[in-house]
């Protein structure tokens, strides 16, 4: 169990580092600088040994001149140390930040490339932390921990060598004092990797509860449930505090074993050193230097212990980033190998298409149909009948579990995304807007458009009056997610955005569900005019859309049960469509 864990930790570290080949450019140079940088630390104890043995305790009284020379040389070494340390630090920062910026961007892009289902299976906050907090953890480790670790290793190596030169017996004493630490550190690392995971989970849960209390503030207010919400908040905050403190406690206890080892080492060196000295194997200066060296050995071991503990955090960060990057998008862009959609109007063909959400029942069953180019089709059915799934398969937000979808005879999975997304545009029911102006939002579809183009587009859609009623017209800020506008107004902007994209196949998924009937009817008429010559497929809740469509597709419990022009479908009064229509009339007359 433990070996599996540590193997997977090493493998994560290996794969994590492999993500950033930049980290290894000039690694040898950095390590060389690190070695130089530690030289200064060892130089001081050596200077003291030389100073005491050959200077202060020189035969015939202290030799100040010699001590001056020793101090001068050591000061020079210290200067070299400082300069190498500067360059090493700069290198480390530059290299690691460059590598991490590219990991951030790559992960960001990869998240957008994941399929809609993948994206939705994660909390939004968790996705954001993949490109922020998780990468920051790695950066913390590389720059603080990683640097310290490299320096510590260098210091350990150099110190060990010098210690051996002075006295191999005392070196063994020091090693003996530190040997048990290896087991202690391993024990605590296993605990800490679990505890840090708990910390991150409890923090994630806490953020979720806080977000809920902020986003759901109107509901909290409307139902007066401040106390209940406060209790939930307190619980989550307390759980995260406890988890953090537990991890901290374990970290500190593990650290204190390092101090214990240091005490043992020092005491051991004094006792053993004195016995050796009495035997004439050691001078006072050598023993003093060794005491210094033992301290120099202790510090990096303690630092390395702490760094290794914190590495658990970074490894968790890497693991989460790798989770994303190593997830193959299940709805993938065929890329350059794919085909472009042929020019001209687009026709649609579903060939025995089935669809089920992972682990769920089938929501679409054996849909087999053709939509001719240039027709306006309405897809109707009750909520939960599978209408929206139909739209998502059509725009390749998802792939069918069985069967295939073809546009202009080309299987959708072969169509390059750049061709698909420029020719096929969907307007979802929730018309998400960016926190920018209306103009920025519409221009999102086609960045080159001028304000005049945008004004014209709104005019063509018959929305000039509405636009003029806004305080700053096109320059009106829409707020976060468009929330400064009403739900219906957001849908108007989203529709304009799709309209300027000028697609050959326009898919409207209840795109006007919150718009008032008069505006909707007006939009419908203008869309009918401006989309003439293209293929339009409208998923509709309001049957007014179906009435004006060339053809209606009726979906019921995942199956297409009827299709044809509105008038034809009504001929059988017992049909599902006739029932839907009767209910519609009841609502609207």
């Amino acid at each position, binding site marked *: 169990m433990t070996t599996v864990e540590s193997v997977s930790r090493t493998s994560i570290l290996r794969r994590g580092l492999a993500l950033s080949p930049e980290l290894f450019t000039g690694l040898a140079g950095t390590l060389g600088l690190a070695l130089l940088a530690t030289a200064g630390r060892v130089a001081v104890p050596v200077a003291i040994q030389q100073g005491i043995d050959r200077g202060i305790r020189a035969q015939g009284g202290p030799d100040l001149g010699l001590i*001056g020379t020793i101090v001068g040389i050591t000061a020079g070494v210290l200067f070299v140390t400082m300069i190498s340390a500067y360059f090493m630090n700069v290198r480390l920062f530059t290299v690691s930040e460059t590598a991490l910026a590219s990991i951030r961007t790559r992960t960001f892009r990869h998240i957008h490339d994941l399929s809609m289902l993948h994206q939705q299976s994660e909390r939004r906050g968790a996705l954001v932390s993949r490109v922020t907090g998780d990468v920051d953890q790695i950066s913390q480790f590389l720059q603080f921990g990683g640097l310290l670790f490299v320096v510590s290793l260098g210091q350990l190596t150099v110190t060990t060598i010098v210690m051996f030169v002075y006295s191999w017996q005392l070196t063994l004493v020091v090693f003996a004092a530190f040997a048990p630490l290896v087991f202690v550190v391993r024990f605590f690392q296993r605990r800490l990797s679990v505890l840090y995971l708990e910390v991150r989970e409890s923090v994630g849960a806490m953020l979720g509860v806080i977000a809920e209390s902020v986003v759901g503030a109107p509901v909290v207010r409307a139902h007066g*449930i401040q106390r209940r919400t406060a209790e939930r908040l307190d619980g989550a905050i307390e759980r995260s505090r406890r988890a953090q403190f537990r991890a901290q406690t374990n970290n500190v206890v593990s650290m204190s074993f390092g101090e214990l080892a240091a005490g043992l080492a020092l005491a051991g060196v004094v006792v053993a050193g004195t016995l050796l000295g009495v035997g004439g194997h050691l001078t006072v200066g050598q023993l003093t230097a060794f005491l210094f060296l033992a301290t120099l050995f202790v510090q990096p071991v303690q630092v390395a212990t702490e760094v290794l503990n914190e590495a658990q955090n970074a490894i968790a960060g890497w693991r989460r980033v790798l989770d994303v990057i190593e997830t193959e998008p299940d709805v993938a862009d065929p890329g350059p190998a794919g085909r472009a959609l042929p020019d001209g109007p687009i026709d649609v063909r579903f060939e025995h298409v089935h669809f089920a959400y992972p682990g769920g029942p089938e929501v679409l069953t054996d849909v087999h149909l053709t939509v001719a180019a240039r027709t306006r089709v309405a897809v109707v059915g009750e909520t939960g009948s599978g209408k929206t799934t139909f739209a998502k398969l059509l725009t390749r937000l998802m792939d069918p579990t069985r069967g295939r979808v073809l546009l202009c005879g080309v299987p959708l999975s072969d169509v390059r995304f750049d061709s698909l997304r420029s020719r096929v545009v969907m307007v979802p029911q929730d018309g998400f807007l960016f926190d920018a102006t209306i103009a920025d939002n519409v221009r999102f579809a086609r960045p080159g458009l001028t304000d005049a183009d945008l004004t014209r587009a709104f005019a063509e859609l018959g929305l000039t009056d509405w636009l003029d009623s806004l305080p700053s017209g096109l320059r009106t800020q829409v707020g976060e*997610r468009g929330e400064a506008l009403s739900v219906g107004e957001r849908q108007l902007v989203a529709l304009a955005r799709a309209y300027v994209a000028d697609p050959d196949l326009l898919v409207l998924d209840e795109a006007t569900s919150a718009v*008032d009937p008069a505006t909707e009817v007006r939009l419908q008429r203008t869309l009918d005019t401006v989309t003439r010559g293209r293929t339009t497929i409208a998923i509709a809740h309001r049957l*007014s859309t179906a009435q004006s469509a060339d053809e209606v597709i009726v979906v019921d419990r995942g199956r297409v049960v009827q299709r044809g022009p509105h008038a034809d479908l009504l001929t059988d009064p017992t049909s599902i469509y006739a029932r839907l229509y009767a209910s519609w009339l009841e609502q609207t007359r």
Partner: protein
Amino acid sequence: MAYRRTEVGADVTSGKVLGKGLRVLGHAVRDEPHMFAVSVAGSVLFSLLTITTAFVSGAVVGRIVVPAFDHGRVATGTLLLGGLAILSVSLGKILGILGRRLGAGAMQFNLQAKYRRAVTRRYLRLPLAWHQRHPTGTLLSNANADVESAWYPIAPFPFAVGTIVMLVAAVVSLFLTDWAMALVGVAIFPALLGVNVAYSRRMSPRVALAQQLRAEVSAVAHESFDGALVVKTMGREASETERFADKAVQLRDATIRVGRIRALFDPVLDALPSFGTLAVLLVGAWRYQQGATGVSDVVSVTFLFTVLAFPVRAIGWVLAELPRSVVGWERIRHVLDAEGDTVYGETALTGTGPAALRFTDVRFAYTDAEGNGPDVLSGVTFEVPAGRTVALVGPTGSGKSTVAALAARLVDPGAGTVTLDGADLRELTQDALVGSTALVAQVPFVFDDTIRGNVTLDRAGIDDGTAWRALRLAQADGFVGHLADGLDTTVGERGTSLSGGQRQRLTIARALAGSPQLLVLDDATSAVDPRVEAAILAALRRADGATRAASILVVAYRRATIALADEVVYLERGRVVARGTHAELLETAPGYADLVTAYEKAEEEREREHAFDADRLDDGLDRASDGLDEESVTA
């Protein structure tokens, strides 16, 4: 795109940061005096023992080792005593480490928890108007990242305090040992402090910028993933990645600039004590030559400089974190000091039956912090008499949702009054308000909780029986009954495991479960079958054993819904243009007639065109049906 920048925090470039930062630390000490005492005690113990280590080592070398070497023999007892002395100092240091780090950890995490609670409490009390002025992302980071950065310096703070004690003790002990070597210390220690202060000065603006950019990177990612569907369907992944990469590169450069400062100062801080050691060696040798000091003193002092090097860095850590801490603290204070809590009145409602709602000359604007903003509603006057149903109709963007929010006192009017049974909503107690009025919003909000939790919201007097009745009335009992765990099923973040229609019905059930005296439906029934809607409204109009009767204000477009209303209020651009029955308004309000008869008119027009088309263009239709012939509908 010209995305709005999030506000930049406090001005941390000024020299006042040190003073402000120390005041923040003062708050921390006052908030957590016990943990602070524990950690400082631990730290001081550790520091003093660190100095003791130097002197014990020196003493052991001078009193035991040197005589032993000189005489070529050693008393085992004395030697073991020396070893034990060193070891027991180490054990004492371990105690110090535990006290210092556990105390500091407890202090830091307690403070974080305390201020997270305080900030979120404010969120619950501040009015929605305040919420609307602050982006969600800012509010989240106030409660999370800002609280964290405010208390970042707490981790090294007790260490730093202990180190100052240690420095003082070190200088004293140096003077007790030898004044000449003490002078080296007097030169080195202030230099260390000075370099540390210069370091934090240089770091402040750079760290603040990096922090700002980190927030911006996060904001871009958050928004972009929020709009992932739009990005995908418009094929804008590349341009979004560019937008993100741009910020990521800015962050990279800012962090590298921070790194350069660190790279410059860190080695200097590392080397200073070493230079001190060398100076002591030189001065010590000179003093030894004069016979003023012994070998053991020289060893002790050099050792002292070596062990001091590391703890002195703690002061630098605190100073380096102060700017970030000040920014975080000031952002927290912005929330804690925000004024304008929703103040509830003292009046309770006496009636238990349907309540009458009245708007009198109400004006409303969504204002910025300065109180500016265009009017969304002006001169709105209407009433929902007790037990009656009033439909609120108007074009998109005419202010209907704002009226609904005012009716439930989610916001207060800028002018005019909103009353319930004659009492101004602002005079009512919170219990009276939420006990009498229920609002179902246009976009359903579902908590990450069980179905039961979402319906009952732990309100008093709502048991499972009531919950099921409400679910049944909202036609949500069907799907809830099919869920594996029924009422105990958890619905995920924002109710992701439910469909939009299911979420809507759940929030309707939530409102009904409270047996309101006034129900406000803000276009909340679009996913509900009209027959269900009629059943809900009908049940609320007559009191029976299970349901209390209620007055109803319903925002609607559907004729079926409007038909159930006793009166219609027609709104246009924030003003009440007409009031009356549906039939009256059809006659008198042309805008209203256009709106509610839009579908019929469209159909009539279509029929006229069809008749026209049929005369002229039969081959046009043939073309359209060509494609349909090969269709095979598999049912």
